[in-house]
């Protein structure tokens, strides 16, 4: 069924009792052209673009739990393309352009809201760095505005401008950035992929790879062996574990990132605000809750929960820049496992094993990349050649010294 204003009206008249299920619950077939491991946003988007852009519809997405139960359901929903370095800048702008038409592409309300993203600066040096970033964006056709103090005060009058350590001097604004409804993105891609014939198989954990003559020819799962001409991994924080099943060691460490949401309050924040100097960023959901976070905890973890020192650090950052949130109560807090790469940028490439493809290393920025990640990964698997916007995301770039180190931290994943 196609969703429209008419289908909504009909559903409303029937008391919303007769909506058909949005995607099937098939049993795995013995064999697929492509098997995608991981039913998060990236895996589902990959399956959708394989079917829609490249006509490969005999595709299965295998998910060990339920779709969107990992980082796709745990992020802070921000979309933006305010990157500096070649390799990242074009890729994330491709993603932004796909966000801008995602609802038409998927026939699903992903609640994309281009409410703007502001990064604060606090010194002349930081202003110059932001001016450079904004100029790099504009050279690449991406919108960016450097806000001075007066312009920023007009937009966000409530900030603590006279902070002793980090006085606010202005900000870099990307108006096209904003937020999207993370669960709806998962559900939208799942439904659209399913309608094109993709099998979404939940509660199906991959436990090993099937190899023939040095080539990956399928996967072993908790629901039996499934053959595949090509297998793609899109498993985020579990990338190293799945790669280890294929005997591979990756330039990735898994770290925990916490996020927080407050009780709902009246409209306060018009867009997304990042206070990088204070390790704090925040937006306000449509329900009214402040959705915020900060740094990763900093130690390797697969536990999907963090610890108190970072909670304290994030809340201190929030209080420093928006002192009036001190009496807002915290509603929920959670952790997700980030696949932190050695240069802070993703890896989308073939692996040394024929038939196995890798999509990993998203660090804490995977959500905004969802559409482009799916498109370029589908391109790679369908045509066996790298998409132009992913040509720097190669697995061998670390050996070649061609890192994309946006933050300039070197090979220390907990600092990216």
């Amino acid at each position, binding site marked *: 069924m196609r969703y429209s204003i008419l289908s909504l009206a009909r559903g409303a008249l029937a008391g919303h009792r007769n909506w058909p299920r949005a995607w099937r619950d098939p049993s795995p077939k013995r064999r697929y052209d492509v098997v995608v491991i991981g039913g998060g946003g990236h895996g589902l988007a990959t399956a959708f673009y394989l079917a829609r852009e490249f006509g490969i519809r005999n595709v299965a997405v295998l998910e060990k739990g339920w779709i969107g139960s990992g980082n796709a359901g745990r992020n802070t929903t921000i979309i933006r393309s305010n990157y500096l370095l070649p390799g990242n800048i074009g890729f994330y702008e491709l993603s932004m352009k796909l966000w801008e038409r995602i609802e038409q592409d998927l026939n699903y309300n992903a609640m994309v809201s281009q409410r703007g993203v502001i990064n604060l600066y606090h010194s002349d040096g930081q202003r110059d760095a932001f001016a450079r970033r904004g100029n790099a964006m504009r050279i690449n056709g991406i919108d960016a505005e450097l806000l001075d103090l007066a312009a920023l005060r007009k937009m966000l009058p409530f900030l603590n401008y006279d902070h002793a350590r980090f006085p606010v001097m202005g900000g870099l604004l990307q108006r096209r950035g904003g937020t999207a409804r993370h669960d709806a993105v998962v559900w939208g891609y799942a439904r659209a992929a399913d309608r094109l014939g993709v099998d979404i198989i939940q509660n199906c954990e991959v436990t090993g790879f099937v190899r023939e003559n040095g080539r990956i020819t399928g996967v072993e799962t908790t629901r039996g062996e499934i053959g595949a001409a090509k297998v793609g991994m899109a498993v985020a924080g579990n990338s190293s574990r799945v790669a280890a099943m294929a005997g591979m060691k*990756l*330039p990735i460490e898994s770290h925990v990132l916490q996020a927080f949401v407050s009780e709902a309050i009246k409209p306060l924040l018009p867009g997304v605000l990042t206070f990088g100097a204070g390790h704090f960023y925040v937006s306000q959901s449509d329900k009214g809750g402040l959705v915020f976070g900060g740094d990763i905890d900093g130690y390797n973890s697969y*536990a999907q929960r963090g610890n108190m*020192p970072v909670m304290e650090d994030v809340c201190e950052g929030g209080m420093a820049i928006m002192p009036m949130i001190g009496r807002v109560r915290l509603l929920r807090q959670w952790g997700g496992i980030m696949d932190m790469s050695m240069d802070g940028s993703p890896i989308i490439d073939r692996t040394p094993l024929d038939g196995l493809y890798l999509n990993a290393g998203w660090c804490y920025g995977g959500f905004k990349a969802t559409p482009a990640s799916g498109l370029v990964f589908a391109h790679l698997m369908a045509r066996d050649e790298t998409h132009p916007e992913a040509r720097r995301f190669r697995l061998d770039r670390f050996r070649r010294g061609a890192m994309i180190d946006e933050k300039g931290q070197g090979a220390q994943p907990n600092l990216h």
Partner: protein
Amino acid sequence: MRIPCPFCGERESGEFSYLGDAAPRRPSYSAEAAEIAAPVADAFYEYVYLRDNRAGEMREYWYHGGGCRAWLIASRDTLTHEFRTVEPAAGAGARPTSVERP
């Protein structure tokens, strides 16, 4: 997460900073290694970039900056955050691995 420091006793994790996996060893490297440049490059690539990234027990470096300021090697479960042992690092990580000649 509380870390049982061998010098200070159990302290909260905010007093510590984390370096990472204690397994990688810096390859030995000398001027005459030029003739074996490829294996040296491979060994450094693995040392700098590749990680086991274990789910489960992992030996790792912590620094007790908020206490005794000693480098420690902890054995910790990355699935549960449980610390099994914490001992002084005492040069344990500085031993280089030698690159074998082909």
